């Protein structure tokens, strides 16, 4: 897979690490949420067939995190 790093351009996927879904917000006040809400945040992630907004980090390059949209079926990537 060729991943478009916003800073370095198209690079091979082996230069990157996957950071999971980009749509998981850290609870604003962790202490205020109940166990179930906290557990959802910690342990549950979407796993769609199709378009997914994801975080990636260019570990073997500029070390920058960024977000992209990937089709989990075709691996076609569109920038977020």
């Amino acid at each position, binding site marked *: *897979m*060729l991943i478009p790093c916003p800073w370095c351009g198209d690079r091979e996927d082996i230069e990157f690490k996957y950071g999971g879904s980009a749509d998981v917000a850290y*609870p604003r006040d962790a*202490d205020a*949420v109940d*166990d179930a809400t*906290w557990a959802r945040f910690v342990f549950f992630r979407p796993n769609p067939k199709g378009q997914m907004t994801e975080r990636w*980090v260019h570990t073997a390059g500029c070390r920058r995190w960024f977000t992209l949209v990937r089709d989990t079926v*075709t691996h076609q990537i569109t920038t977020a």
Partner: protein
Amino acid sequence: MSRLASGGRIDRTRPIQFSFNGTPYRGYEGDNLASALLANDVRVVANSVTYGRPRGVFSAGVEEPNALVQVGNDTMLRATQVGLVDGLEAIGLNGRGRLSLEPDGHRYDKVYAHCEVLVIGGGRAGITAALEAGQTGDRVILVDEQAEFGGRLLGAGWNDWLETSLGALRSPPDVRLLTRATAFGHYDQNLVLIAQRLPNGGRLWQARAKRVVLATGAHERPLIFANNDRPGIMLAGAARAYVNRYGVAPGKRAVIFTNNDSTDALAGDLKRAGISVEAIVDVRAGEAVLDTFPSPAGGGGQGGGLGGVTIAPLTGGGSRREVECDLLCVSGGFNPTLHLFSQAQGRLRYDQALACFVPDAAPPNVEVVGAAAGDLGGRGQGTIMPYWVVPSDGQDWSTHFVDLERDVTVADVRRALSTGMRSVEHVKRFTTIGTGSDQGKTAGINETAIIATQLGQPVGAVGVTTFRPPYVPVSFGLMAGRNRGDLFEPIRLTAMHPWHVAHGAVFENVGQWKRPWYFPRHDEDIETAVLRECRAAREGVAVMDASTLGKIDIQGPDAVEFLNRMYTNAFDTLKIGSCRYGLMCKVDGMVFDDGVVMHLGPDHWLATTTTGGAAAVLEWMEEWLQTEWTDLRVRLTSVTDHWADVAVVGPRSRDVVRGLFPKLPLDPESFPFMAIRESETAGIPVRLHRITFSGELAYELWTQSWYGLALWEAVMAAGEPFAITPYGTEAMHVLRAEKGYIICGQETDGTVTPQDLGMSWILSKKKAFIGRRSHRRRDTARPDRKQLVGLLPVERDQLLPEGAQLVVEPDGTIPTKMIGHVTSSYRSATLDRTFALAMLQSGRERLGAMVYAPLNGHVVSATVTEPIFYDKENVRRDS
């Protein structure tokens, strides 16, 4: 000899000597092993995998299912793919191939290539596409799996066209031509892996192309009938190739069995080669080959070959006739070669008129041309009557071979269907069709058609199995390339490494680092050496190379706030010139890593990490800074390799350090535990830290890594009067375990909280930190979690194996409840006995109780203790 007197692309002036199954033979330049064997009348090449039936050359290419051979240490090679070289020694496989236990002696390399257009397949369509692309000035790569370009045109009267076209391709500078190069994997965004065969190894090309043109041609498929596997039965197109391209007569008396026009030209070719055509059996004319019979045993030839065929009307009944022959040329039509197309997620559809699967929707920037695109005119398929299997009398399907390499018959497919399987994927797995090293290139579509016929469904509805890389078998050696042995992965060495080597250190790998494991004296074993090294650290002075510790330089006005959020304990109270042990959790509250954090100056900090965790910790910190705490002004730099770290350890360490830094006040009040001082010795700038990982009075001397060896040697010289003893990682482990210091990744495994480790003291109540919320979760706060404890085996000499499971009953019935496991276990010089650390359910409630480790055939009993065995009051550490 069946070599024709003239014709073909072989060079009769350049003979090549080779042997097969120990018998010497002669071939010519331009032969492959299959053509040379046929030329020498070797009919039986291998015996089949399940039934041991004799098999001969079936095809003239990569799709060969029968003629499998071993050459040297390489097994499961297709004779059709083995180029003939002088002195070649080949052996026909008898059933399965056998992997060699010898190291692969070939040399492999990797090449990364980039181009605008990659054309796969060097037949007419591929050469045409490459010519077109080459004119634009684009970078073009043309690859073909054969020894020369041309595909089916070779030896077929196209020499002038080939010569002109290839000449035109050789002139543009940006056109690269690769032969003996098989594209075997087509991945996302047109990454194509290509295996190129070279005389003593190969090259793995990793080509990234803007556009891929698939000119992969088509594979002929056989018709299926009883005993369709005898040596002498081959694909019609293969027979033509052997006659025209290799100047070989693959038989003397031939029968042609077909359902399409492609065999029209074959009869003429055979006759010109002096082969008589005894019969042309055409299903379109209402006839079929019903069965075959073997050649009589003896008679000079090898047994088991084809002796003749039984021909019968398609309608059954009617008159049958037997025709003697030693060559049966079969054509059931053509399958466009769409393996790569499918790997790249191209979709197929069944074309009723062509009786084959053709490309439907192509993936982006992939184009299919020629026979692969369903243009079968070049192969002369013409009109075809879709036909798959000739039924035989009595419904016996046990010799109707569908997959020759796997020895799977129509009977097997029918059995699969009778069990209720309907999906072609299920039938494949049940029968193993298509799972051989040929990946069912001559079998797959016939399998689909048989299923469709049996189930009364259209062929297109049954579909094909998923095509996966690799298209051809690829050796692990090619994948590894040069990355084997010492070049398997980078090796990291500390500045002091040459000293360790010179002083006989035994090394262990810690991540990519080589670390001294222990320093044996004379012929000491590890146990004796480690006990001696530990005694030196506890009673005198010892020294260790700690340079591999991960080190992250942290700078910025918000560094303190950052550290406070990152670590479970607080850093806002830590003064410049001091350090503090810190622990990190992940969001789930589990311990992640630990280390010492140094406050070096205003807005300037340095954090050490575990040797193995350095990269992961830096990434973790970066992730939070970049994605959650974007308002924090903090910059991180890995400085692991910048610093050399000499740990001087033991009650006499102060004497050694005093010798090196005579002016530096070293008394506990002036330079207390966890303080940092800057100084220099013999021109070497040194940062001294009173940090201990052994529990003893200790100093860590840091210097820029290029001074590392000089500093180490200075320490050794200053320590000589005190018999300073170098020690390695094993003694380090023992010393820290005696003190109950954990190692992240040894005591912890991603399921252990600080509370489980008895480290609640390190959890700040005044600030938020990563993982804190999870510590309140009901499960994380459970009282019966595994907790860190010490273990003292009842037998003082008994060493518990690390990883041993612990149970409550010494003789409990199996399955017994496992309540924990041993994480660290050593012999202690100080305790004069063995001891261990363990994670044990409700461990702190079991202090004083017995637990048991059932091992192979015996049980080790141990008493549960506090996890600190030495200097609980920290008197020695703080002295």
